[in-house]
């Protein structure tokens, strides 16, 4: 891949406990800059774990991550936190908005944490994003007064506000009904197309995955298949995914 914003080399992750659980094995992938990459696979295959490793939220047990040309060797949680603040945005299945703050304040939180830009400018930017996403009218509402779809949109605005290089989304529509789920997904696809922000999304939904430019399929913590949808075409990828389940040859 010519221009990858993220690269992993032989990434492995084991959860250590009473019994050690190896979850990821030798995962080497690349995430195209500005593209939409979907991570699919059966439940328990390690999609969320991989996403959290890529987002520098969960340290891998072995292997390497290169983020925007920079190999992440940092192990200090505070340094990593500061790096995440400026470079990545997260959207989870649950919105994780703070009920203590209004919708607009929630969107502003990453700016406050990072500091730097003047307050007025940050506010203008936050409001612009909220307008774009269609939640501008709820700026002063308490987040628990919003519908699920509206809450998830506010969470998207929050993920965008610091202009991150990559947005990681873990089943962002998992808690929404079909209609508002579609709307949120459509919005994310649009945002990905109109800006240069890279989108990495874990999804169960084949329809959703097929809107992506790249699809990685995980099985038992290994990359089983990769589709370059742009090259192979959507139909071909769809057929492939439908017709053959992926098994890893040992």
């Amino acid at each position, binding site marked *: 891949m010519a221009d990858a914003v993220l690269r992993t080399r032989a990434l492995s992750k084991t959860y250590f406990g009473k019994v050690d659980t190896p979850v990821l094995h030798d995962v080497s992938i690349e995430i195209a800059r500005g593209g939409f990459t979907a991570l699919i696979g059966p439940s328990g295959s390690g999609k*969320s774990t991989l996403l*959290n490793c890529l987002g520098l*939220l*969960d340290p891998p047990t072995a292997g390497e991550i290169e983020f925007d040309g920079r190999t992440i060797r940092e192990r200090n*949680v*505070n*340094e990593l*936190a*500061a790096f*995440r*603040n*400026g470079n990545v945005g*997260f959207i*989870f*299945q*649950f919105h*994780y908005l*703070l*009920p*203590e*703050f209004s919708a607009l304040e929630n969107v502003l*939180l*990453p700016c*406050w*944490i*990072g*500091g*730097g830009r003047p307050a007025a400018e940050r506010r203008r930017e936050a409001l612009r994003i909220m307008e774009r996403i269609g939640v501008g009218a709820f700026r002063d509402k308490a987040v628990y007064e919003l519908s699920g779809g509206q809450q998830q949109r506010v969470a998207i605005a*929050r993920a965008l506000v610091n202009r991150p290089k990559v947005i990681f989304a873990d089943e962002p529509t998992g808690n929404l009904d079909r209609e508002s789920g579609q709307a949120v997904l459509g919005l994310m696809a649009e945002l990905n197309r109109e800006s240069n922000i890279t989108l990495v999304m874990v999804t169960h939904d084949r329809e959703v995955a097929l809107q992506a430019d790249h699809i990685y399929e995980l099985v038992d913590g290994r990359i089983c298949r990769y589709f370059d949808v742009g090259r192979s075409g959507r139909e071909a990828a769809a057929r492939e995914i439908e017709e053959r389940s992926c098994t890893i040859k040992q």
Partner: protein
Amino acid sequence: MKKPANRYEWMIALRFLLRGRGQTLLIVLGVAVGVAVQFFLSALISGLQVSLIDNTIGSAPHLLVLPADRLPAGAAGVLDDAARRDSGRVLIDELTEIQSWQTYVDDLRRDRRVLRAAPVANGQGFIERGGAVIAVTVKGLVAPDGLDIYRIRAKTVAGAPELASDTALLGQRIAERLTLAVGDKFVLRNDRGGRLVLRVGAVFDLGAAAGNDLLAVPMDQVRSFFAIGGVSAVEAQVRDVFAAEDIARGFGRQYARVKLESWQERNRQLLTGLRSQSTSSVTIQFFVIVSISLAIASVLGIAAVQKQRQLGILKAMGTTDRSASRIFVIQGLLLGGVGSLLGLGLGLLMGWGFVAGTGAAFGLEVSARTLLTPIVLALAAAVIASTIPARKAAALSPIEVIRNG
């Protein structure tokens, strides 16, 4: 690395507290009551102590240079004949009276810790008037320090408080018992049958103190009337009354032929009383602080668990562990700070109510110490109490929170 923007930590701490409004209010009230009680008690006890001490030594000397009443330690039998001859006069001289009092007065006055010093000659006399005979303590004083040690000038209720020959300044009690007024004359007698006609120059009222049984006359007149060659003592007041004992000890080491006595040595019982009062007030303060700490620790401990979701996402978005723990320390400070201010208001109100309601003979001691100590203690308790939840917040892993919803 960028400088942390910790203004947002205050904002989050404040919002966390405002979100759990009832809980926060209860804790703030708890802190307020604790601070109020502390302030009120310490102001009350200090006020009481100030007034007790003032009653005891406000109009009395703080330290006295007294005749040794004994030979200097080791003098007899150790001194050889020559030494005995040299020091003989001195030994006898300072045994019951002080001859070289001017030296002691000068030495004391030269010390910066000493406020005033004066010689005094004491005698026991009788006043006969009508059918009554009463015994009085006659003080021979010199102006102005002698008068001021007994605060006679400040407490004069009638007449002019000036020392003059054949003029007596009279304590209120004697004046009342003998129905003497300014200008009246009376006869003072000593135990050897001597008589002295005195005119009442002024009457003073030293309050409840024993000083109201005093009769003050110029020192030289007392010396001749009671046949005192030197003086009875040299008396002094010092700036810091509690330093009197140290000062006395210092001078005592310098002088071999006289003994020094401080008000503390003469009032051991009072001091023991005061000390146990202070101890009990410190004990109360200690337990109030402990209960404030426990209350804050428990409410913030609960908050650290309740706010896990928020902390998790904040950390995912870049909040450092240090910031997360500061958010809890700030909450502690806010609880302690707001509670203290409220408590101070409450305490002042309590104090005002107490003084107005009971008509207490003494005031509350509202000083920087009694005001600030409870606040500083409450803030310190709040910060210490918040360290455990703060540490919990720092240790929280965002990935745990996010994985478990």
